[in-house]
């Protein structure tokens, strides 16, 4: 009797799993189905490399937005990664248990603040400062980079911290025993050893920065042009989808889905990189 009950529950679990997996497949399939025909019809290269985006004249080139996403993400990494890794090193190596216990939850709280609040702060405080002291419209790559950098801090910090703390104590102890200072230990032993974990954290942070939409729409100005300085206004791929998806029909909508396909592919590449990086560690 118990055996049959077990079997039934096993089947139910299988059913649940299959439903969930099919949902994931439907989503993926739907996005590709809506986007790929457009890509094949109009040419992928043309789509990616043309800087002209004008739905009313049926020009769909996302080059400016690819650059926009790129600049904004790189900027976010510049602001977030060094700060994040340093903070992680401090928490993992130089802070005692109580401080860590207090600070780590606080940092995770940073992760919980809604992105629109960050965007709001960017608009109210950061953009006017940039406009007054550095010039330009204020709504710029720089503003987005700072805000996104802050947003990816919790990700980078907690993953890096976990990687460093997961290293065997023997690494550190051996180094100290050989007479190295704490900093030398960190620089020459721990960081290289934790490198793949930290890299995974950075890549994850990068994924988060690329995917951010609302805060970016609020502080980048959404101009469709090739940026030349960090003070220029740009539009990212995600902002473009958000700004136009409400009313896009036909080819226009297909172009937005094609942009989604590009983003999807990019995340796939990122994830593959993470797998390689983690594999190398093992």
């Amino acid at each position, binding site marked *: 009797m118990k055996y049959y009950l077990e079997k039934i529950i096993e089947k139910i679990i299988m059913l649940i*799993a299959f439903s969930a*997996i099919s949902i994931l497949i439907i989503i993926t399939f739907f996005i590709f189905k809506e986007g790929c025909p457009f890509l094949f019809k109009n040419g992928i290269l043309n789509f990616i490399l043309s800087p002209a985006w004008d739905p009313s004249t049926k020009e769909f080139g996302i080059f400016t937005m690819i650059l926009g996403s790129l600049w904004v993400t790189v900027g976010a990494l510049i602001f977030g990664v060094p700060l994040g890794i*340093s903070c992680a090193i401090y928490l993992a190596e130089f802070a005692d248990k109580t401080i860590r216990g207090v600070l780590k939850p606080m940092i995770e709280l940073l992760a919980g603040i809604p992105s629109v609040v960050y965007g709001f*702060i960017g608009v109210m405080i950061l953009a006017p400062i940039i406009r007054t002291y550095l010039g330009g419209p204020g709504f710029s790559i720089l503003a987005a980079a700072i805000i996104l950098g802050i947003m990816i801090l919790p990700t980078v910090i907690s993953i890096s911290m976990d990687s460093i703390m997961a290293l065997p104590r023997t690494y550190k102890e051996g180094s100290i025993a050989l007479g190295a200072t704490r900093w*030398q230990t960190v620089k020459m032993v721990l960081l290289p050893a934790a490198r793949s974990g930290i890299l995974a954290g950075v890549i994850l942070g990068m994924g988060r920065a690329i995917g951010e939409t609302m805060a970016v729409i609020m502080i980048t100005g959404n101009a469709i042009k090739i940026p030349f300085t960090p003070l220029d206004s740009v539009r990212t791929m995600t902002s473009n989808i*958000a700004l136009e998806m409400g009313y896009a029909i036909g080819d226009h909508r297909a172009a937005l889905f094609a942009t989604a396909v590009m983003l999807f592919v990019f995340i796939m590449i990122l*994830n593959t990189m993470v797998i390689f990086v983690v594999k190398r560690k093992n």
Partner: protein
Amino acid sequence: MNVRSKDKIARFAFLLAAMVTILILVLIIFYVLFNGLRVVTFEFLTSPIKEMGKEGGIFPTIISSIYLALLSIIIATPLAVGTAVFLTEYTRENVATKIIRFGANCLAGIPSIIFGLFGFVFFVIYLRFGWSILSGSLTLACMILPTIIRTSEEAIKSVSYTYKEVTYALGGTKLQGIYKIVLPKALPGILTGIILGMGRAIEETAVLIFTAGLSIHIPTSVFSSGRSMAVHFYTLAREGISIEKAFGTAAVLVISILIINSISYFIMYRFMRKYT
């Protein structure tokens, strides 16, 4: 520069980094709460929205947020945990499971706006659900499904194989092994995933604007539209309708996140104590 001073400088730099990070956090929270809490009164929390947000309170948005978060978790969690159990317990590591896992990881990472696009075109338009709590929570559920699958899977996997061996040795069945040993041990990890998902559901804005809509009324059924707190905040702030009420909404949002985070820590702490 000798080695000792390099060491000192390095330590100082790292300490500085940590302090700057914490400073940023504290400043942000203070800015929001300082400007927002003076608006948050009992009235604010329980009054309906008037004049598109310029007057009145945010009660409907609180209900909408809760409705959306709960519904999406109820839909996503059984599916996700079931899939995680299936992947770890009932299948062997082969190409299929690797693909599924990779797919889930990718979907966990793609920008949420893509889910918004999917939800808008599929639920709102194609299935004709219109702007509704239903469209919103279904889309949210799709969004948090991969995340919960991933965290649950990792949590279950990390439960030592020995525990299961012991169960079998004692004569228990596979299901008993899962039910009584693996799941409870993995529960903190699973719960973290759920709470992470809930956090995402509450803060998510772009997706909800296009699926759950902007209605200022309390949603009376799953087919009603309703704006969540985050959407309301976005609207108030962006359109300049009422900066002070925007701050108030933001304050409520931040405090809700605080509460949710604290609850999750509390649960984790209790479970850790109970099982380790």
